């Protein structure tokens, strides 16, 4: 029989205002095994924890139940306290009487009754708890960064600078990501390439960093400290070791009609291409869907002109298998498709563009060589309209419910740059709210209005209609003036919502990292663990976790690096002791458990057992405690009940059921 102490927390008034804690203490004292119960205003405080230590000592407690907030909050705290008191940490159970009781119920009598029942269930469980010992597993001192944008580059640099090997996997032919597509950056207006390129070069030159471009993650197995990852190096059709990056192949390539992804499809590129001039590595790839050689078998111009002999049409995808201790996801974002927003005429008019397209138009290396012009007729615009929140903050199913966060600032940037370079162009920004929290951000927006004369109108645009004269009729409203506005514009720029890069869902599935309904990766705690995934050993960097601007992305990238370094610096990890455990005497050897184990943690071996004096060799299940993550799938599959889960045993759960239904 256990000797159980029950500690009921008031959590200030969070619990005590709705739950009669004294009554809970009084009631649980009559539960089997309970030999001590008390309440305290803050159990998680040092003084509260001391109460546990004292009681364990005085009453010789063997088990502890804390009735408090969610175990997700303080289970670790109380387990440590138990350990300090000399108990096994797994002799602690939490009754969640805050999130699951006091915060959702109003009537004190009812909430108190429920709190007692929850406590009773925890007590019933502790009665069956057994001390568990955490095992150890090794840490591979190498990190994988998925995504080679600014987030991935910064994370890789920080990890590498700490002395650990890092691999970057980037799916496009070059690292650089979205930031390489930007012209200028807010709030300082410095050139994006000027600050990004040195970082790209630094990453490429770093002796601890290894970059796989034009590559994707194919498969991930293992667990924190010991992941095994298959990386697919897609066939580039160009030998990176031989290529000198001279660019002649691209000049001579006769297939020049492919949409240039880097320029958002606003112009075309050759079939053999490097996405942009500063690409790293400066090695082109052949787009096999566009290449004449691959389509018809005839051509081979690039091979002929390449003096280095680097063209290799027979190159195949290559799978590289590597072990990692930590994985950082930095997959970034894309703008949403605007097919659902007919009212903005994006698909009808070439002169309605997204902000990212405007970045390319404004950029000297872009489709118009940096001249602001209409894509329909090449004319310089006189009236420009910017529309904010296109697809952001939409609770209908056409767009995204969240604020994309970066649009207010980059629109101010665009407006300012245009007014600066082309003072004769009128710029009108239709906004719902202008959101500029950030250092020097509001000042930046105000400068656009006050110094550059950008016309900000509060009110969303209802419709953009192409006119026969080639202009665009923008129908908006000025809510402050209570007027409807009809404006003929030459160009309309849509601040299009951003969304996580589409491939992230697949990556999250491989990593068993959770993802929210918007495809953003979920952090382990929204406030206190913002750069960690709930899946141990997986960290989040950049927009894959939520909308962010560059400074925030870089800050988060550094934070993710530090978390990864903290993991890599360890030689051994303690493993979750709540793993599956087979009873060899009950095991039939039927293999059903091994069939459902997602980790391959169950193997079978012929083993001599002593079944009440009968010695025989049997086929029995063995669980690798380092691989087992404790899901319990095997326990239910096992027909004989030989497989049980430590910490969540059949008897423990049944005891809880009984306590609740009593």
């Amino acid at each position, binding site marked *: 029989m256990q000797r159980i102490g029950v500690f009921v927390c008031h959590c200030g008034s969070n619990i005590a205002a709705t739950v009669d804690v004294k009554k809970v203490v009084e009631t649980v004292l009559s539960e089997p095994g309970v030999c001590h119960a008390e309440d305290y205003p803050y159990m998680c405080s040092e003084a509260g924890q001391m109460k546990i230590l004292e009681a364990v000592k005085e009453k010789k407690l063997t088990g502890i139940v804390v009735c408090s907030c*969610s*175990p*997700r909050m303080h289970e670790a705290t109380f387990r440590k306290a138990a350990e300090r008191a000399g108990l096994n940490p797994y002799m602690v159970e939490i009754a*969640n009487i*805050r*999130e*699951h*009781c006091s*915060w*959702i*119920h*109003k*009537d004190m*009598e*009812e*909430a108190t*009754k*429920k709190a007692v*029942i*929850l406590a009773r*269930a925890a007590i019933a469980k502790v009665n069956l708890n057994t001390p568990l010992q955490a095992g150890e597993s090794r840490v591979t001192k190498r990190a994988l960064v998925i995504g080679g944008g600014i987030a991935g580059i910064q994370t890789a640099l920080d990890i590498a600078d700490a002395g650990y090997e890092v691999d970057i996997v980037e799916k496009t032919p070059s690292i650089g990501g979205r930031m390489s597509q930007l012209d200028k950056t807010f709030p300082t207006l410095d050139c994006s390439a000027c600050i990004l390129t040195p970082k790209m070069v630094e990453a490429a030159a770093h002796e601890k960093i290894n970059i796989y471009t034009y590559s994707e993650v194919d498969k991930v197995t293992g667990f924190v400290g010991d992941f095994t990852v298959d990386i697919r190096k897609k066939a580039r059709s160009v030998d990176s070791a031989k290529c000198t990056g001279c660019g002649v192949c691209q000049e001579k390539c006769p297939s020049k009609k492919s949409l240039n992804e880097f320029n958002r499809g606003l112009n075309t590129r050759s079939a053999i291409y490097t996405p942009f001039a500063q690409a790293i590595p400066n090695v082109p790839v052949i787009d096999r869907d566009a290449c004449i050689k691959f389509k018809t078998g005839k051509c081979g111009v690039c091979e002929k002109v390449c003096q280095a002999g680097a063209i290799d049409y027979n190159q195949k995808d290559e799978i590289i298998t590597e072990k990692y201790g930590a994985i950082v996801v930095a997959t970034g974002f894309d703008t949403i498709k605007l097919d659902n927003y007919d009212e903005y005429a994006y698909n009808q008019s070439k002169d309605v563009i997204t902000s990212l397209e405007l970045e390319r138009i404004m950029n000297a290396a872009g489709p118009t060589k940096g001249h602001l012009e209409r894509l329909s007729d090449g004319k310089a615009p006189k009236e420009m309209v910017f529309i904010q929140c296109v697809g952001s903050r939409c609770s209908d199913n056409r767009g995204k419910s969240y604020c994309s966060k970066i649009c207010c600032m980059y629109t101010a940037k665009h407006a300012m740059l245009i007014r600066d370079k082309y003072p004769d162009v009128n710029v009108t920004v239709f906004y719902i709210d202008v959101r500029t929290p950030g250092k020097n951000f509001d000042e930046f927006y105000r400068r656009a209005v006050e110094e550059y004369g950008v016309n900000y109108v509060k009110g969303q645009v209802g419709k953009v209609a192409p006119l026969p004269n080639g202009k665009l009729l923008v129908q908006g409203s000025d809510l402050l003036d209570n007027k409807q506005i009809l404006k003929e514009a030459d160009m309309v720029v849509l601040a299009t919502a951003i969304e996580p890069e589409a491939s992230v869902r697949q990556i999250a*599935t491989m990593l*068993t990292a*959770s*993802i*929210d*309904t918007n495809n953003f990766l*979920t952090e382990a705690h929204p406030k206190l663990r913002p750069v960690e995934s*709930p*899946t141990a050993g997986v960290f989040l960097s950049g927009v894959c976790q939520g909308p962010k601007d560059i400074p925030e992305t870089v800050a988060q990238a550094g934070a993710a690096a530090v978390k990864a370094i903290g993991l890599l610096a360890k030689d051994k990890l303690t493993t979750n002791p*709540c793993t599956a455990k087979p009873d060899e005497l009950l095991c039939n050897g039927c293999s059903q458990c091994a069939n*459902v184990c*997602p*980790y391959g943690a169950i193997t079978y071996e012929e083993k001599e057992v002593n079944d009440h004096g009968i010695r025989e060799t049997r086929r029995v299940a063995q669980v690798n405690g380092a691989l087992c*993550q*404790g*899901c*319990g*799938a095997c*326990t*239910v*599959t096992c027909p004989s009940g030989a497989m049980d*889960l430590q910490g*969540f045993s*059949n008897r423990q*759960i*049944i005891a*809880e*059921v*009984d306590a*609740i*239904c*009593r």
Partner: protein
Amino acid sequence: MPLTENEFRPKIVAFCCNWCSYAGADLAGSSRLSYPADVKIIKVPCSCRVNPMFILRAFEKGADGVILCGCHPGDCHYSTGNYYARRRMTLLFSMLDYLGIEKGRTRVEWVSAAEGVKFSQTMNEFVEKIKSLGENVRLGDLRCKN
């Protein structure tokens, strides 16, 4: 809701997976989204840990309804646990229905850590449903008691 006499208050057991649904229930709590106190949550590591025996046990001990909440299919922390749970529960619920235990007394709902609202709504609906079905007398014993 204060307790009033004679009102039928069902016993409801909710199994919640640790990673999504238990966190969803926590979020419902921290967002103060109320649902009836009749619901008592048991934490399990994954929906696939829930043995049909646990559900039968709950009914035998007098539960009027049992609900299992797990991560959305595709989002299981353990990759595949909820897919197995889905098959097991589909078959179990169908069997219980076959034995005369109304389908409304058993339910599976996928609730993510971000879906506090869904958690609370689900529980409100489920309790309403159980109240409309009344006390479960059938699984106490499938045989004649006398």
